């Protein structure tokens, strides 16, 4: 018993030490660098128009990625779990491709397709549509990188739920959309919420793929991570770390929100 407690204690100390060094220290350093000269100068840097543009662009890209990937993710997870069709397992693997490919590589692919020398680049350019080094390119790159999250959080849950509830709804006379809206999605709402927040966090923080297609035009095609890099390379340390603090706070609050449903259920259980 005594020895067991000592082992538990050692494990506890080691885990917290690792978490402190690897996970807690970096954000702490970022915040302390940002506040090096006090909170006033830090807030002052946020008034820079390029910085504000970067924040807006990041929010826009996140909203579009979340909307598109939620819709796609729900339909893909539905297809993958409720139907058996040829190529199903191949599709399951393909959905995870963005997780295994380096974001830089996927960014390069978009450039290859839509760049001025790319396959479709010239034709689109003539039609007046700019993809590479413009906002649409950034959107595409982010969409690609964040595609797996909603699907991957939904699939295991929906697989475990099986088709019975949907079939019961069908026999009660519900149509396709009624089943999706009233039975499937509410049944998977916790996993869906979690997938959406993961997508949000990832979309806000994406650097590699966006960096390749963006062209780093300040005020136009710089998202927050890219802007942070520009500021840092330009020796504007306070501005860089302030922006970094803001970005980290946004992403972390998204991740923290994930546990809200869990708290709610726990609270409800206590009430009951």
């Amino acid at each position, binding site marked *: 018993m005594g020895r067991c407690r000592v082992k538990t204690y050692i494990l506890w100390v080691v885990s917290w030490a690792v978490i402190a060094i690897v996970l807690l220290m970096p954000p702490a350093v970022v915040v302390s660098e940002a506040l090096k000269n006090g909170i006033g100068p830090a807030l002052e840097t946020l008034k820079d128009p390029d910085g504000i543009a970067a924040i807006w662009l990041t929010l826009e890209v996140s909203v579009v990625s979340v909307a598109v990937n939620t819709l796609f993710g729900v339909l893909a997870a539905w297809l993958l779990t409720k139907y*058996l069709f040829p190529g199903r397992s191949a599709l399951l693997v393909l959905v995870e491709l963005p997780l295994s490919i380096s974001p830089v590589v996927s960014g390069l692919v978009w450039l290859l397709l839509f760049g001025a020398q790319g396959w479709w680049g010239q034709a689109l350019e003539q039609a007046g549509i700019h993809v590479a080094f413009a906002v649409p390119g950034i959107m595409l790159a982010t969409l690609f990188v964040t595609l797996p999250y909603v699907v991957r959080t939904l699939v295991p849950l929906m697989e475990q739920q099986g088709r*019975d*509830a949907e*079939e*019961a*709804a*069908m*026999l*009660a*006379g*519900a*149509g396709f959309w*009624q089943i999706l809206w*009233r*039975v499937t999605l*509410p*049944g998977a*709402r916790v996993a869906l919420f979690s997938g959406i927040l993961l997508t949000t966090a990832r979309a806000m923080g994406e650097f590699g793929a966006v960096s390749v297609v963006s062209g780093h035009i300040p005020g136009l095609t710089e998202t927050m991570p890219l802007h942070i890099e520009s500021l840092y390379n330009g020796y504007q340390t306070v501005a860089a770390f302030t922006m970094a603090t803001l970005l980290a706070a946004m992403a972390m609050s998204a991740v923290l929100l994930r546990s809200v449903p869990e708290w709610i259920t726990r609270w409800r259980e206590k009430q*009951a």
Partner: protein
Amino acid sequence: MSVLIQNLVRCAPGTRKRLLNDVSLDVPTGAFVALVGPSGAGKTTLLRAIAGLDTCESGSLLLDGQKVENMQDRARKIGFVFQNYALFPHMTVARNISFGLDVQPRAMRPSQGEIAARVQELLDLMQLPDMGKAYPARLSGGQRQRVALARALATGPGLLLLDEPFGALDPIVRRTIRSWLRSLHDRLGLTTILVTHDQEEALEVADRIVVMQQGSIMQDASPEELDKEPATAFVMEFLGESATFRGVVQDGWFTPEEDGVLPFAVAAEIAPGPADAMIRPFEITIASADLVQGQTVPISSQGVRNGYRHYLARLKDRTIAVHIPDYTGENVLSESYGVLDISRARLFRDGKRYS
């Protein structure tokens, strides 16, 4: 609602293996039919085909004489209870029950008040009057079962399909729900088709038993008929414990191969040749060794269970269970020798019954 199935064939997806092999079944309005058979016999497949949850390669299905093509034709005419109930976990019991009414197009949908009244009526019918606000997770197995049944009945279907509805319940709840379901069926004037692998349950609750094996219907008969005249050796074995004696029919007599079993007279028109005599343990009697001629076998007593005295007769290569009603008082044997009288056996040849 009557159900008429003609020559239904369904293959396992992507293969040519037949899950339903040319199945035809006629269920008149008001009937209570049980589909029984070992697992893999195709009972659930047939039930799902009637519900329209799976498509079939060929054959036709008529509900009340009308051909059904799609889900819309079936919706609200069929109530289906799933094996694991398939309640919607995120809805209250009341919302689960009213689901079939809630999803109706606005023009057809009853008012909120009417829906609430209908839900309460069903909750009362299910003996769950105060459970409307609870979530399914908080209910016991028997309560979930009744909520699933209430949900299936909410739209007032004429046909009730039940897939192993008692599978997950403990024996006492099973027995009460079983008789309660039967009375519900009679009271609401439903047509009910029930799938079960428990033949005793089927015999108790249904007017008609359909025995399935390997995707085909082996026999479709009333419980009495099935008990008296099983069509095949499989049906005989499936419906309860049985013993098989191999032997030969010759000159109007069946003579068993084994020693210690008495020959018995059979109908004269039965062609001579090898045959199997099948019999239930409670149909065998033991003749005392000093009353009959022939080789005797050792008989040992196994005690009394459910009003039957259980004995084991030790033949040359196997033992045969013999159950004798306790109240008869005769033939009380402890450790002794005797001969088995199997004259109440049914004769089968090549698996098919012929007497």
